């Protein structure tokens, strides 16, 4: 009897659970797969182009970060000398913000009209808007370009942003959201003397906070990463966006010069950061909104 109990007590050694180990191996491999390119980008921004050319990516962190940053931000590229990293960053910002805000405003207003006003054919209008999801920019790019060109919108911010702004996605999400707002809230506001504009600004917009935040995340990143349309609509170098500009620099790779690794990767880094910042910032806001407010 004593023997038996002794052996049972002695037994607990830490058993390795192989399935657990495997899970972690998969996760670690996945993380590395995503992280290593980013680390290479980071590393390359800290060394000189010559070193990168000679040795490829290294494990050591160099001392050239400041120089590369300065290069990337202020050094002119192209022929005109008008597009620096700074100007491209500003252009990208304008595109991202204009795109996101424009889509949110248009989407909210369209949804407001569809949900709250007794429009004739409102449902038909909604489904028409909805079917435009099937016609992304790429499908209608030639007519869109022609219209923009005829309106003299080439090489303008208006031309860059406005033709992209109508959004079935945003309209759809705001419509669904507005329909979930209790009817009594509208009625209470009517009795409180709030007209359509006041109701929209004082009540509907604040209630939509979380929806706006979510839309902003999606649309900002979407706008920031636009490549095809900016390429078509802007030919002046001072209108280039970051996503386009990086391409311009990496083209040097085919030349005989030593490619500007440091500068190109620095620009790539700069191109990544704002979307990441937007996601991080708005996500916390988004979650806060979700948990705090109730309709």
């Amino acid at each position, binding site marked *: 009897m004593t023997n038996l109990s002794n052996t049972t007590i002695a037994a607990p050694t830490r058993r390795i659970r192989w399935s657990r180990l495997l899970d972690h191996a998969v996760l670690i491999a996945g993380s590395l797969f995503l992280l290593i390119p980013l680390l290479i980008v980071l590393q390359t921004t800290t060394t000189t182009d010559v070193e990168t050319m000679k040795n490829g990516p290294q494990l050591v962190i160099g001392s050239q970060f400041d120089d590369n940053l300065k290069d990337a931000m202020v050094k002119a590229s192209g022929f005109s000398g008008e597009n620096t990293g700074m100007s491209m960053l500003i252009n990208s910002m304008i595109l991202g913000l204009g795109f996101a805000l424009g889509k949110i405003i248009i989407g909210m207003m369209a949804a407001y009209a569809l949900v709250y006003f007794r429009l004739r054919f409102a449902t038909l209008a909604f489904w028409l808007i909805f079917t435009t999801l099937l016609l992304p920019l790429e499908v209608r790019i030639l007519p869109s370009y022609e219209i923009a060109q005829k309106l003299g919108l080439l090489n303008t911010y208006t031309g860059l942003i406005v033709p992209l702004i109508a959004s079935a996605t945003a309209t759809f999400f705001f419509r669904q959201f507005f329909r979930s707002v209790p009817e009594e809230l509208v009625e209470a506001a009517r009795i409180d003397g709030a007209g359509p504009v006041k109701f929209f600004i004082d009540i509907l917009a604040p209630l939509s906070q979380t929806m706006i935040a979510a839309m902003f995340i999606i649309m900002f990143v979407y706008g920031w990463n636009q490549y095809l349309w900016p390429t078509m609509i802007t030919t002046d170098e001072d209108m280039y966006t970051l996503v386009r500009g990086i391409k311009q620099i990496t083209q040097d790779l085919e030349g005989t010069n030593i490619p500007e690794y440091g500068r190109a990767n620095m620009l790539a880094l700069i191109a990544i950061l704002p979307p990441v910042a937007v996601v991080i910032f708005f996500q916390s806001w988004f979650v806060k909104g979700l948990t705090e*407010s109730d309709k």
Partner: protein
Amino acid sequence: MAQVSLNNIRKIYANGYEAVTPTSFDIADGEFVVLVGPSGCGKSTLLRMVAGLEDITEGVLSINDRQVNHVDPADRDIAMVFQNYALYPHMTVRKNIGYGLKNRKIPADMIESKVQEAAKMLNLTDYLDRKPSQLSGGQRQRVAMGRAVVRDPALFLFDEPLSNLDAKLRHQMRIEIKALQRRLGVTSIYVTHDQVEAMTMADRIIVLNEGRIEQIGTPAEIYHAPASTFVASFMGAPPMNLIDARLADGQIMINGNTALAPAQGTGAITLGIRPEDVEIHDDAPIHFHVDIVEELGAHRLLHGQLADQDFTIHVGKDVAATPGATRIAIKPDCCCLFDPETGKAL
């Protein structure tokens, strides 16, 4: 302050459903009128037409002798309290209460003092900076009240404002609302399907059924002289007993030849007797068989058979009761007679 007059008001919804048949009544200045009826009878529809939230299909609605059929809700000088309170969730209590004033371009310092006054009246002073989600059901209810009283309207409209509260709180709020209305003297229309609320709060009750008015009267009139079997069975808990009877020889007869009470006329009738209008005596004339005794603390309900028809008696806790045969007497002048075909009072 206002008197309200409805003249043949009718509502047909877009799908062709007639929710309110042509309905007329007047409400005097400062009166508290309760609209009561079963679910779906058109109470809310009627109230919302008065508020201007629903179009009036036919008829004339006047507030203070001004026809308001096509006047915007905001310009009717009314305030409404909704069943689910409809507070603006993103605004503090202070802003919720003050919103209607702000939209009417009242100066900020005036709004603040009015909000403070209303908050004091409703014991909300400590909660002015909270959001509605941080309040209890009763407090939210009070904020909804605050939003109504702060505007000092001519007419209060309530649509089942207490139905989301538990029984105890409902009782308390019932008294508070009534007291507040008395104090402010504002004409009020109050919708409920709870007949206790109707009885306790109303100056006058309007009983609705299927979009029609069954009866208008003071709580006492409605209770003691119901205009139809519908009202008789809707108002009162437990409801009035309704049994088949017959008039003969100046008596109300049931089941062959038992005479219940004197009454003139002849022919079949429906007889209505309130459960508490019955006394139990060993030497009383009428046989009653008790099946179930329901113990309610302050009183007892005896469910049983009177001449083979279901009948309920309400007795005080001091009256001992056991299932089995007993004898009862009807108190004098407590019989209501109805036409068995139409259900109308005779």
